[in-house]
């Protein structure tokens, strides 16, 4: 089947769904609100989020519920789109659900390390049972790390837990997290192998870019915030970046002016960063990614790029909404600078 006919239904659907994304006017209105309640009501009555909000009363909704609902909308939409895909592309798209699952696994790990009760956890879960790669029912019945790790045996996540200890959970949260991320990216790459050649190339260049950006961010944060040895920083980086090969990473880490090299590298990507005020780092990385995917979409009509673009659109939109919520909570100024979607 040619790509044009393969994607015609999907792209039509996306086109229709695109029209329902928040536009600059919506953003403007949301930013001008002064309470979370107003934002909730606006989303509930004027946007496509109305369905997910329908079960909630905006008056009573809790903060974490609010964020969860926004994120869930994204998964619902991905699920909707997956119906328009053939087997291999669907298989690839399903990895997206793994992200939610990984986030929820992190929640369990955190609760275990703090010796908290796991009973209340499920209501915070983002993932959908349908796409579970590991049984959460069983995970939740464990109350110590050892038993928990046992449960991951045989699943894709096994490798992330091969050397984990209680101490790691407390002192090295990044240990489990980086390992889980690495599995996620590997899974993405693996499933992308079955896509058509054109799709595979597009997807893999985006994955590679993602890995580069994750690595450079990791190096920056490790230098800035954690007291780690060079070897540790090196070992935690992910394989498979577009530009940052192991050798380049090593040269960078072991050079004398590693921080300035890191910043320079980001600058090449158009990501400006000020080490004294790095709160815009994530946003500028997201913006770069979005621009890259946008170009990929424009250069490759009738390919999977359109779908990837849409998924990022909704993901960044949900992040933006959450940022706006937080800004109101903490009375932050210059909100537009913190939003990924640039309307200004």
């Amino acid at each position, binding site marked *: 089947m040619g790509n044009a006919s393969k994607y015609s239904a999907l792209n039509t659907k996306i086109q229709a769904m695109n029209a329902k994304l928040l536009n600059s006017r919506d953003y403007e209105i949301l930013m001008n609100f002064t309470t979370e309640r107003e934002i909730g009501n606006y989303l509930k009555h004027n946007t496509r989020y109305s369905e997910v909000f329908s079960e909630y009363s905006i008056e009573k909704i809790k903060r974490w519920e609010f964020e969860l609902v926004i994120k869930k909308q994204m998964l619902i939409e991905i699920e909707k789109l997956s119906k328009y895909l053939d087997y291999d592309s669907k298989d690839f798209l399903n990895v997206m659900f793994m992200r939610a699952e990984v986030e929820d696994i992190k929640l369990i790990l955190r609760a275990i390390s703090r010796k908290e009760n796991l009973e209340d956890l499920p209501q915070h879960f983002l993932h959908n049972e349908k796409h579970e790669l590991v049984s959460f029912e069983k995970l939740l019945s464990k109350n110590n790390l050892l038993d928990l790790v046992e449960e991951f045996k045989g699943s894709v996540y096994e*490798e*992330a837990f*091969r*050397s984990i200890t209680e101490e*790691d959970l407390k002192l*090295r949260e990044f*240990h489990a997290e980086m*390992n889980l991320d*690495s599995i996620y990216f590997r899974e993405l790459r693996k499933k992308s192998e079955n896509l058509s050649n054109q799709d595979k190339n597009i997807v893999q260049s985006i994955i590679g870019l993602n890995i580069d950006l994750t690595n450079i961010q990791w190096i920056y944060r490790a230098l800035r915030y954690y007291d*780690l*040895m*060079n*070897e*540790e920083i*090196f*070992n*935690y980086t992910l*394989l498979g970046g577009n530009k940052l090969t*192991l*050798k380049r990473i*090593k040269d960078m880490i*072991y050079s004398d002016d590693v921080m300035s090299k890191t910043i320079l590298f980001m600058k090449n990507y158009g990501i400006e960063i000020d080490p004294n005020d790095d709160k815009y780092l994530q946003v500028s990385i997201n913006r770069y990614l979005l621009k890259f995917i946008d170009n990929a979409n424009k250069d490759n009509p009738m390919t999977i790029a359109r779908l990837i673009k849409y998924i990022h659109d909704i993901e960044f939109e949900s992040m933006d909404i959450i940022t706006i919520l937080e800004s109101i909570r903490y009375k932050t100024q210059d909100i537009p600078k913190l939003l990924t979607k640039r309307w200004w």
Partner: protein
Amino acid sequence: MVNLAIEKMKMMNIVSPIENMHSILEDLVIMGCFHIQNYTKSNSSDTLTMQLVSEAMDDSLDIGSIQKFKFEKTDFKDLLEKLSFIADSIDMELEVDNDIDREYNFEKIVTRLNSMYSVIAPIRKKMEDMRKSITEKEYFLENIRFLDTADVDISDIKNMKYINYHIGTLTKENRIKLRDNYENISAVVLHIGSSNDGESYLIFSPAKYEEETNKILKSLNFKEIEIPSDIKGNVSETSNMVRSQIAELERIYLEYKDVVSNINEHYRSEIIRIYSEIHLEQKIEHMKENVAATKNFFYFSGWIPEGDAESTKNNLEKKYEDIIVVEEKPEEINKEFIPPTKLKNNWVISPFELLVNMYGVPNYNELDPTLFLGVTYLILFGAMFGDVGQGLVFVIIGFLLKRRAKKGTDAKDYGEILFRIGLSSTVFGFMYGSVFGNEELIHAIVVRPLENINFVLYSAIGFGVVLLLISFGMSIYNLAREGDMEECIFGRNGVSGLIFYVALLSLGLQMLLNAQLLPNSVFIIIMILALSSLLFKKPLYSVISKKEAEYEEGKSTYYIEGGFDLIETILSLLSNSISFIRIGAFALNHVGLFLAFSTMAKIANSPFISVAILVLGNIIIIGLEGLIVLIQGLRLEYYELFSKYFKGDGKTYIPVKFIEEAEEF
């Protein structure tokens, strides 16, 4: 007389005090002929039943307060899990015992099951722990076996003061990182082999850099293997020691296993009993979900075949004093309750119900098309694929398939169908005189298709016309039964349509044969009249029925649509008829395809190749053409015929039974 009607149903309403509910529902499950009618508010209020009930009972039954019965659901999942856990430890299959002792107390069963479980579970847990410990030890062995030849004392390694050691495994990715950054690491890294879990390494590092080493190994996701504390001596001694530990553990494990299976062996018959009872209880609970109740009484209704109604009613009334059983015929109750469909066909035809159901389940008022479909499908297939040898191949495949498949499964029915169409193909094979494509072995009883092309094609259309006429008849009958007189008289599949079709056929035939029964103009006038009655069916019918005609989307839309409808009717009648020419075409095609192979066989150089070509040809014909003919036959049935007379919007009669057919062994 062959019966084309669907099994008659009666609605049975049962009212009784709530104490009797469990027992009555249980009886119904055991009887196994009760199709649940979901409880809705409307089927309880102001029905005949309720009037009768109120009259019969002094108790002022408050019909207003009747509502869906609420009860606490049993956690069957938990019970079944425990059961299969126990059954698993003695390798027994859980199966339902037909011959169930009905004098049981469900609560006692649950208690008994739980106590059985509490005996087994701790032992199994212990066994699992042992298994785990064995796996760990085997893992250790696997990873140090590469050092077997080294003459090193493990305790010496352990007791080193300035050098620390690590044994463990790395994944592929991290190996690359270690290799690429080796010069920055102050340790000696020895690759000692590979295992399932990755590559095994023995690492020595200065004791004073222990912390750094640990951090680095951690960041490499290094999986450390502990040397058990009770281990001394050199590696081969150590290995032997661990091996004997494993053997010991295995021995104890087997002992435990014996104990468990001994205990469970005692339970065996009890487990089957408990399983059967839980199974029954599940079915009862399923029924309960559709019960309505007031404070003191419960109300339950469902469908039951007319033949079983009387005996069921008698049985219930004999057993329970205070029970009211009211039967109602479908005609007597609200139209919104549609009786389920139970097809009744003899064993020759019944497998074809599968093909009917694939299109749709006949509704309660329709004729059951299975017989018509079955007979015609057999003829269609045979005519298109007539060959003694190839037909027998289908017979054999069908026979094997139906023997292998479980009762009540689709595969079984497919086997039966294949068996029958194979026979039909064989019969037609004799008529065409063809055995595995060879036309010299036997004489054709009727005709050789390729030598009488016109005859074959004409008779195919003739046969199709007969089928279409029968379909018209069935459609008219169905419409009349449904009470849709407008369609029945003036519809395209009703009398008007039939008249038009017959006139069209006669005209065609007359012109073809150059005969003159009636003047052509008479037929043309009949056709025009029939067509105009199609177009004006609403106003015409309103005259007959003396009711005002209703146009849903306005008059003009009705006539525009009607106009298009006319054109479509004419075209589709023509194409429906011509469509049957494919029967003849495939009969020819069947011979033609073989002809190609036999020509190839003839010009082949060696007799061996000739035979191979003929065999291959037959396989291709059976596989490929067989499949095409199967589909084409079905297409004729579904598209040309079903679309005329069959709606298929019914729902299947599925009574709640203790043992479903597919569960039987």
